[in-house]
């Protein structure tokens, strides 16, 4: 479904992503792990059009998507969450999700019909599925940190993506929030067969839910495979797992 080949991105001479390779098959949960500063976020920005690659190819369903605008990438079927929760702070929880649904339905140029009640059933269904239904009228900036991140996932889901990309979905969450978020990711993959690509630096979590793992160090892919394979890989042990003291 997604194929990344030798992608490079540098910021003024510094190569943040330096020869990343990755593939994601339909229905999989794939994780990218790597220490802070490894280039995970930069790689995701390249996939979703927030940055353009200097070289290399990014193919989604066989077509090049590198360098497209973010809104075009979204319409091709990829939506995402950001490392720092990225929501519409002045709007209610309901409206946050509603805009995403209306955008997917290409209705955002309707200027006279009232938005109130539009797509209500679907928005409610999405909010129920992520557990934010009771908070639907709350100003989204007033939510707890964990709920904001969950809301952002809900917003990303509202685009009916074929591939959902999550940048450190549990970063900064309390343990029970993390627990809940993992259950949500599992549910999305299990129930609706959604393809998910996410990154984390908390690796215990990654082994728990990912079908496949790609390890990134200093911008480059150093290993790829199942959890077991990655665990056994000596390069990974020295470069990452050893360093962080976990595992």
């Amino acid at each position, binding site marked *: 479904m997604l194929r990344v080949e030798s992608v490079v991105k540098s910021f003024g001479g510094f190569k943040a992503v330096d020869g990343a390779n990755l593939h994601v098959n339909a229905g999989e949960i794939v994780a990218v792990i790597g220490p802070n500063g490894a280039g995970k976020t930069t790689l995701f920005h390249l996939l*979703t059009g*927030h940055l353009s690659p200097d070289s290399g190819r990014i193919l989604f369903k066989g077509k090049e998507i590198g360098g497209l*605008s*973010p*809104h075009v990438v*979204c*319409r091709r079927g990829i*939506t*995402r969450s*950001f490392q720092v929760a*990225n*929501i*519409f*702070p*002045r*709007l*209610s929880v309901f*409206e946050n999700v*509603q*805009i*995403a649904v*209306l*955008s*997917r339905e290409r*209705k*955002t*140029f*309707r*200027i*006279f*019909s*009232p*938005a*109130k009640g*539009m797509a209500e059933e679907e928005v409610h269904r999405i909010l129920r599925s992520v*557990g934010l239904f*009771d*908070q639907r*009228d*709350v*100003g989204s900036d*007033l*939510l*707890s940190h*964990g*709920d904001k991140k969950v809301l*952002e996932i809900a*917003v*990303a889901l*509202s*685009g009916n993506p074929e591939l959902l990309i999550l940048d450190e979905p549990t970063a900064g969450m309390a343990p029970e929030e993390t627990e*809940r978020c993992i*259950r949500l990711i599992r549910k999305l993959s299990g129930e609706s067969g959604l393809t998910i690509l996410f990154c984390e630096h908390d690796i215990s979590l990654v082994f728990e839910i990912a079908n496949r793992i790609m390890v990134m160090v200093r911008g480059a892919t150093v290993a790829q495979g199942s959890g077991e394979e990655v665990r056994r890989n000596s390069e990974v042990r020295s470069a990452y797992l050893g360093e962080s003291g976990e595992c």
Partner: protein
Amino acid sequence: MRRSAAPLLLLLLTATLLALPQILPRFHTYVAAIVLLTALLATSLNLAIGYTGLYQFGHAVFYGVGAYGTALMLTRSGMPAPIAFLVGPLAAAALSLVMGVICIRLSKLYFGMLQISLGSLVWAVVYRWYSFTGGDDGIHGIPIPDAIASPKGSYYYTLIVTALCVFAMYRIVRSPFGKAIQGIRDNPVRAAAIGVDVKLHQLASLVIAGFFGGVAGSLFVVVENSVFPDMMFWTFSLEVLIMCLLGGMYTFFGPFVGASVIVLLRVFASIHTRYWSLILGTILTLVIIFLPDGVLGMFVRRPRPKESTGA
């Protein structure tokens, strides 16, 4: 504002506005008309600044172009008046589109600065082009159709057009488009990531704001029978901006309230222009310090999250 009280309040307001010319002397009727059209102008600016989050610092230019467009059509074209009243706002919308295309690639403050520069360019042309725009003298004695030429007639015309335009804008901010631009205001990166073409929506919003600003300008022609270049000078843009801030730019009727207060202050304090900027500056300072959300913004209550946030 309580939801249940809103219809009653609206009815009361409508009745008052309709009765005003019957009870007020001629000059005060004129002032009331200026309040209305300035409120329309401020509300139109707020589409861009409060609802779309664009630093629209040169809004008076669209007001001025709407007014000059209408005035020139009335004095020089020989076309029927209704066409003149449409051409002014359309010219403002067209200018808004052109300036928007040029400025939109810049972000935040730079957008605003470039807009002021381009606006000053338009102002300079109007100010200098004596043979066409009357230069710094402006255009006076503009022929207005009889039905709306009297003070009462022009007041009612202004009231009706303002009401229609404000209602249209009210519908717009509640439409899917309105939600989308508010999303863009809150977080353009997020908006793009859910498939919203950010620049296209911003541009559309600017054109709509420019159009309604132009309508306010055409109303000015009817009420004042004249136009002059100062109405599109950047200082007036700033004054309209202060109206939005004072009333509350995250509320729909805030700019309406802000415009009423500022216009009435300007007229009835009947202060020399020299002191006027001092007063405006003081108001702005006080608003920024004590009323960051504006007068109406104080009354907005947002539902808070429930205590327990279990799954």
